[in-house]
C-alpha cells in the first residue's frame, strides 16, 4: 500500500476520532469549569443516546425523527441528572461529587439493562445500519469510511458553533463568567441554576451526537460502552488544559492524533514499502515496534495522562486554577 495514502487515511482517522473526543471532552469541561465536578456519568449519556437511537431505528422511525428523539432524550436525562443528583450536593468536597457521578452512571447502566430486557432485545444489541453513514468515500486510491468523514465535519461544525455561542452570546458570556468566579457571577445577576442547566444541556447534546457516531462505528451496544469513552474524554480534557472549553477541543484532537499514532506506528516496519528506509532500520522497527504493541494503546494513553498530571497539570493551554471568594 502506498505510504502517502496510508498516512492520509490515518490523518483522517485521527481527525475523526479527535472530533468525537473533543465533542465529549467539551461537555465534561463545561460542567467542570463551573461546578468543579467531574461527571463520569457523561459517558453513560453517550450510551443512553446510542440506545435511544437504536430503539427508535428498530421501531422503524425515520432518521430525522430518531435524531430529534435521541437529542431530546439525552438532554432530558442530563438535566434530570443535574437536578436530582448534583444540585443537592453543590458545595460538597470534590470527591463526593465524583463518587455520586459513578453512582448515577450505575443507575443509567442498570436502567438500560432493564429496559433492554423489558423490550426483549438482546445484549449486546446490534446497532441498526444507517444507510447515510455506512460505506466509504473513494478519492482515487484513498478510501475513507463515510462515518469518519461525517464525524470530522460534524465535529468541526458543532465546535465552531459552540465557540461562537460561548463568545458572542450573553448566555455564553454568563457561562464563562460563572466558570471564572461563581459568586461574582451571581452578583452580576446571573441565575447560576440556569447557567448550570445550560452547561449540562449543551454537554448532553454534544454527547448524544458523539454517541450516535460511536454506535455506528462500534456496530453494537452494551450498557457499559460509555465507560472507556468518558475516561478518554477526561484524558483529552486534561491534556488540553482542564476546565477550559478551548483546552477540551485541543486535547480531544491531540488525543485522537496520539491514539492513531500509537495504533499506526507499531507495525510500521511491516507496511513500509521496501527501499524507503535502510533494511537494518526496517528490521529494527519490526523488532521494537511490533504490531502487537498496539493492544497496549490504552495503557499508554493512561501513562501519558499520569505524566501530564504530574508535570504539566494545566495541560497544553496551561490555564491557572482559579481562587475562591469566601
Amino acid at each position: 500500500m502506498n505510504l502517502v495514502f496510508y498516512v492520509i487515511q490515518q490523518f483522517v482517522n485521527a481527525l475523526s476520532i479527535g472530533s468525537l473526543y473533543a465533542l465529549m471532552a467539551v461537555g465534561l469541561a463545561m460542567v467542570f469549569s463551573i461546578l468543579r465536578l467531574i461527571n463520569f456519568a457523561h459517558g453513560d449519556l453517550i450510551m443512553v443516546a446510542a440506545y435511544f437511537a437504536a430503539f427508535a431505528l428498530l421501531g422503524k422511525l425515520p432518521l430525522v425523527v430518531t435524531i430529534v428523539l435521541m437529542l431530546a432524550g439525552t438532554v432530558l436525562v442530563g438535566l434530570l441528572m443535574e437536578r436530582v443528583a448534583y444540585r443537592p450536593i453543590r458545595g460538597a468536597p470534590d470527591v463526593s461529587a465524583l463518587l455520586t457521578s459513578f453512582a448515577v452512571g450505575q443507575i443509567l447502566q442498570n436502567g438500560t439493562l432493564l429496559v433492554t430486557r423489558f423490550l426483549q432485545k438482546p445484549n449486546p444489541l446490534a446497532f441498526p445500519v444507517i444507510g447515510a453513514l455506512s460505506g466509504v468515500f473513494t478519492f482515487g486510491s484513498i478510501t475513507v469510511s463515510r462515518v469518519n468523514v461525517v464525524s470530522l465535519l460534524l465535529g468541526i461544525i458543532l465546535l465552531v458553533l459552540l465557540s461562537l455561542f460561548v463568545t458572542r452570546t450573553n448566555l455564553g458570556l454568563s457561562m464563562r463568567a460563572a466558570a471564572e468566579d461563581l459568586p461574582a457571577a451571581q452578583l452580576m445577576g446571573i441565575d447560576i441554576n440556569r447557567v448550570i442547566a445550560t452547561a449540562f444541556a449543551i454537554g448532553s447534546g454534544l454527547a448524544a451526537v458523539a454517541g450516535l457516531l460511536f454506535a455506528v462505528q462500534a456496530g453494537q451496544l452494551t450498557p457499559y460502552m460509555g465507560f472507556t469513552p468518558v475516561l478518554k474524554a477526561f484524558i483529552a480534557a486534561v491534556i488540553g488544559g482542564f476546565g477550559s472549553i478551548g483546552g477540551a477541543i485541543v486535547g480531544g484532537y491531540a488525543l485522537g492524533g496520539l491514539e492513531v499514532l500509537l495504533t499506526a506506528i507499531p507495525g510500521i516496519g511491516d507496511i513500509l514499502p521496501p527501499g524507503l528506509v535502510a533494511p537494518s532500520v526496517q528490521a529494527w522497527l519490526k523488532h521494537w515496534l511490533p504490531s502487537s504493541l498496539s493492544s497496549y494503546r490504552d495503557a499508554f494513553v493512561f501513562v501519558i495522562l499520569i505524566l501530564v498530571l504530574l508535570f504539566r497539570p494545566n495541560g497544553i493551554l496551561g490555564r491557572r486554577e482559579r481562587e475562591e471568594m469566601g
Partner: protein
Amino acid sequence: MLELREVEVAYGNIRALKGISLTVAEGELVTLIGANGAGKSTTLKTISGLLRPKAGTLLYRGQSLDRLPPHKIVTLGISHCPEGRHLFGRLTVVENLRLGAVQRRDHEVVQSDIEHIYKLFPILQERSAQLAATLSGGEQQMLAIGRALMSRPQLLLLDEPSLGLAPILVEAIFDTIRQLKREGATILLVEQNARLALDIADRAYVMETGHVTLQGPAMELKYNPQVEHTYLGT
C-alpha cells in the same frame, strides 16, 4: 430605602453579625467603618444575598430580602462591588462591563451605558480589549465600579474600594464616588480608611466585632474622640 433590623449572620459556629441595625435613605452616602473582622464586608454580602441571615430582617423599599438568591436581588436594583474586586480576569474589559448589564432587559441602551462608563473612566476605553487581569490595581478598581454601575443600580454597595491602592489612586477613586453622589446615587460604602470615608459620607456607622457601636452624621463622628483615637489615629 434600605433597612436592616437586628440582623444576625454566622459562618458555621462563628457569629459574624450579632444583631445589627442600619438604614440607608435615598440619595444618601452611608459608610460602615471599623477594624478588620468587624463584620463590614459580611454585612454587604448579606444584603446582596451571598450570605443568608440567621435572624433579623432586611428590607429594601419595603420588600424582604432574606429569602432571595443573589441574582434576584440584583434585578431589584442593588449592585455589589465586592471586596478584592473579583473581576473576571480572563475576560476583557468590555466583556466585564457587558456582564454588569447581562441581566437587564433593555439591551439597546447597554452600549450607550458603556460609553458613559468610558467617559467616567477614560482609561478603560483605551484598554477595552485587554484582559481584566492585565490591568493595574487602580484600573481594576475603576473597572469594578464601572461594572457595578452597568446594572443601573438604585443602591450601590461598595466594599473597600481603596484596598491595595496607592494614595493618589485612592483620591481619584473617591473623586469618582463623590461625582456619583452628586448625580444622585445612593451608596453604602464599607471602608477601612475612616478619614476618607467620613469626609465623603452623610452618615456613618462604626462596627466592632459584629455590633454597631456608634452611629450618626459623619460630621459628628469625625470629631468624636473615640473615633478619632481608634480609627483616625490622632
